């Protein structure tokens, strides 16, 4: 199968999908096949790669929380101190392939074709440590992006090893937890004091809510922070909650809400064809009860973030 056949397969199959879980399984299949095609193509043209590697995805793809259309976020970990160039070339091939299949390139250049996101195992160890030591706004953003990751093709141990380095550093430097909390502390306000939704007020998106920042981020960020605090190596928000709820029973309530939110987004955006549109939900298209539902997701998300913030503060104060 080549890229063209894969794209044709996608066009036909995607219409049959009815749940967000199936969409994510479908995305997974498509991306894995694309990577395998890219590796074959690379090896045909450039020869064998100099070392074994793991190709990993980040962001919503890693968390299995992708919307109908999603952009690319990925990187490569290779074994041994060999030249980086062949893996960057492979990364480029994969990015071009994914774009052809229907995954837009990442505006922020979080892609294996970029030197920052392709490294040897030791290189990644150093990189993650550097990000955490620097603790600047940008370096911690990079770290958070990296931490939401999952190996799609290759040896999953490579990535697990690197995450262990992060857990170890954070345990020795607990003040960094609070820096990570501050790093994602801004929650876009989307409910007014009268309980009304606050959609965009000008431009092409007038009347729409940015679902990703207003509804999803508080859940995703809060649970990632708890995962970091508890050395939880799970990659999705729901699997993280499943592992953590023994320690934090209050998470039970949010687990169900988050799953409902994923399905809610899928139901309302499944017919979108433009990547820029997929994160926006027009308030006018919602019924009264759907508006209430959306408000509940957003309120509870903000509430969860506050609870997690207090938990982390409390635990950090014990260690200090």
């Amino acid at each position, binding site marked *: 199968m080549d890229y063209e056949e894969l794209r044709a397969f996608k066009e036909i199959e995607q219409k049959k999908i009815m749940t967000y879980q199936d969409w994510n399984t479908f995305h997974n299949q498509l991306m894995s096949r694309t990577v395998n095609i890219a590796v074959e193509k690379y090896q045909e043209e450039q020869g064998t790669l100099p070392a074994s590697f793991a190709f990993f995805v980040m962001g919503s793809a890693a968390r299995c929380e992708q919307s109908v259309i999603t952009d690319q976020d990925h990187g490569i970990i290779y074994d041994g101190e060999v030249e980086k160039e062949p893996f960057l070339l492979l990364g480029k091939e994969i990015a071009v392939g994914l774009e052809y299949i229907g995954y837009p390139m990442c505006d922020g250049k979080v892609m294996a074709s970029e030197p920052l996101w392709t490294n040897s195992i030791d290189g990644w160890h150093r990189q993650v440590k550097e990000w955490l030591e620097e603790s600047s706004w940008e370096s911690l953003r990079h770290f958070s992006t990296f931490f939401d990751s999952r190996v799609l093709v290759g040896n999953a141990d490579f990535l697990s090893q690197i995450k262990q380095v992060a857990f170890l550093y954070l345990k020795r430097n607990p003040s960094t937890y609070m820096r990570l909390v501050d790093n994602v502390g801004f929650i876009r*306000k*989307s*409910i*007014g*004091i*009268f309980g*009304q939704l*606050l959609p965009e*007020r*000008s*431009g*092409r*998106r*007038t*009347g729409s809510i940015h679902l990703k920042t207003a509804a999803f981020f508080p859940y995703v960020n809060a649970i990632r922070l708890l995962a970091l605090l508890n050395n939880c190596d799970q990659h999705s928000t729901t699997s993280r909650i499943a592992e953590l709820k023994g320690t934090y029973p209050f998470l039970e309530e949010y687990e169900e809400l988050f799953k409902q939110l994923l399905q809610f987004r899928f139901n309302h955006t499944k017919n979108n064809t433009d990547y820029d549109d997929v994160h926006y939900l027009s308030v006018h298209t919602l019924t009264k009860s759907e508006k209430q539902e959306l408000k509940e997701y957003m309120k509870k998300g903000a509430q969860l973030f506050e609870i997690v913030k207090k938990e982390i503060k409390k635990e950090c104060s014990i260690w200090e």
Partner: protein
Amino acid sequence: MEMVLMDNLWVIIGTFLVLLMIGGFILLEAGSTRMKNAGHIAGKTIFTIGIGSLVFWAVGYGFIYGEGNAFIGLSNFFYGDASFSEEGLSPAVDFMFQMMFALIALTIAFGGFAERAKLSAYVVFAVLFSAFVYPVVAHWIWGGGWLADHGKQDFAGSTVVHLTGAMAALAATIILKPRIGKYNKDGSSNELAGHNQVYTALAVLLLWVGWFGFNGASTFGLSDAFFGYVILNTQLAAAAGAIAAMFLVWALTGKADVPTTLNGALAGLVAITASCGFVEPWAAVLIGAIGGLIVYGSMRFFDRARIDDPIFALSVHGTVGVWGTISTGFFATEALSVGMDWGLPGLFYNGGFEQLGVQILGVVASGVYAFIVSFIILKVMDKVMGGIRVTEEEEIIGLDLSEHGSYGYPENIPHPTEREAK
């Protein structure tokens, strides 16, 4: 004698303060529009007040205060009187103070022209508005015209200055149509944000101070130091307007939008302009606060109606001008109306609906006149001058370069290198 001279001195100080408000309007308009039009906006304000001054001297003052009929004055053209009597203001001082109000009304009207009108349209409309629009309304209310006979209350010009200017601005915005890029095909509007909120904030402060002359010197004297009371009411209304607008926009959108807050302060000032000499301080707070609330609603209304008002002149001076004028019909006290021999008390002071009715009549008549005459003038100009709007290319380049050949911010355009210059 000394008191009379002091009265004259006070009013001429007020004149200077009101003239400085033009500086406020320059900053307000420049800050509220885009960089590429900043030099144009500032420069045209200076030369149009030059035109307005000469027209007011030639015919404007005569149409307002000359001997005539209930509709218009018909004497005192090309005014110049060096006389001084031992009572009241000297004619020249009075003339200068009155001229400032005409210039403010003209500047408000040009808010509706912003970022898309030809320079020649400013020149011609400055002449015609200063001769045929503003003086007529001013005569009706301040010059002994038919609304003055009804006891219409407008202490310093909510109707005469602000509403009249805003109605001309409305006519202009309708004829000129929205700026390129303001509205999308699906009807949604884009925010063409002004380039400098600091200018806009300083503008509001400058206008606020100038308003002490605008309202305070409208007492025309110092006796009883009543001007202090008028200025107190002015201050309270402006403060309440700013707070109310900021609270409302924050409550409705989740953001304490700066331009809306600034417009709230201006709305408080516009609203209290008619009533500052008639109402109690608590009412001034309420009048200003309501002004601040309705200015935001009005901004949203015009935006949705696809009427592009870059400086918010229609909302700040028009909608709030109407509210300010009507407010005396509710809040004018007996002592400050009947006691001053100017109209009747308002509805909340046992005055019944009579004064309220007069105020509404005044607003409707003045607003309709100013709008229709301005609309006709601008339509005729549009036909005769081959359009009053610049071409699409000129608008995109910006009026600094297309109309004046130089840029308000020259550092932002490419300069020849030293070698090329040699």
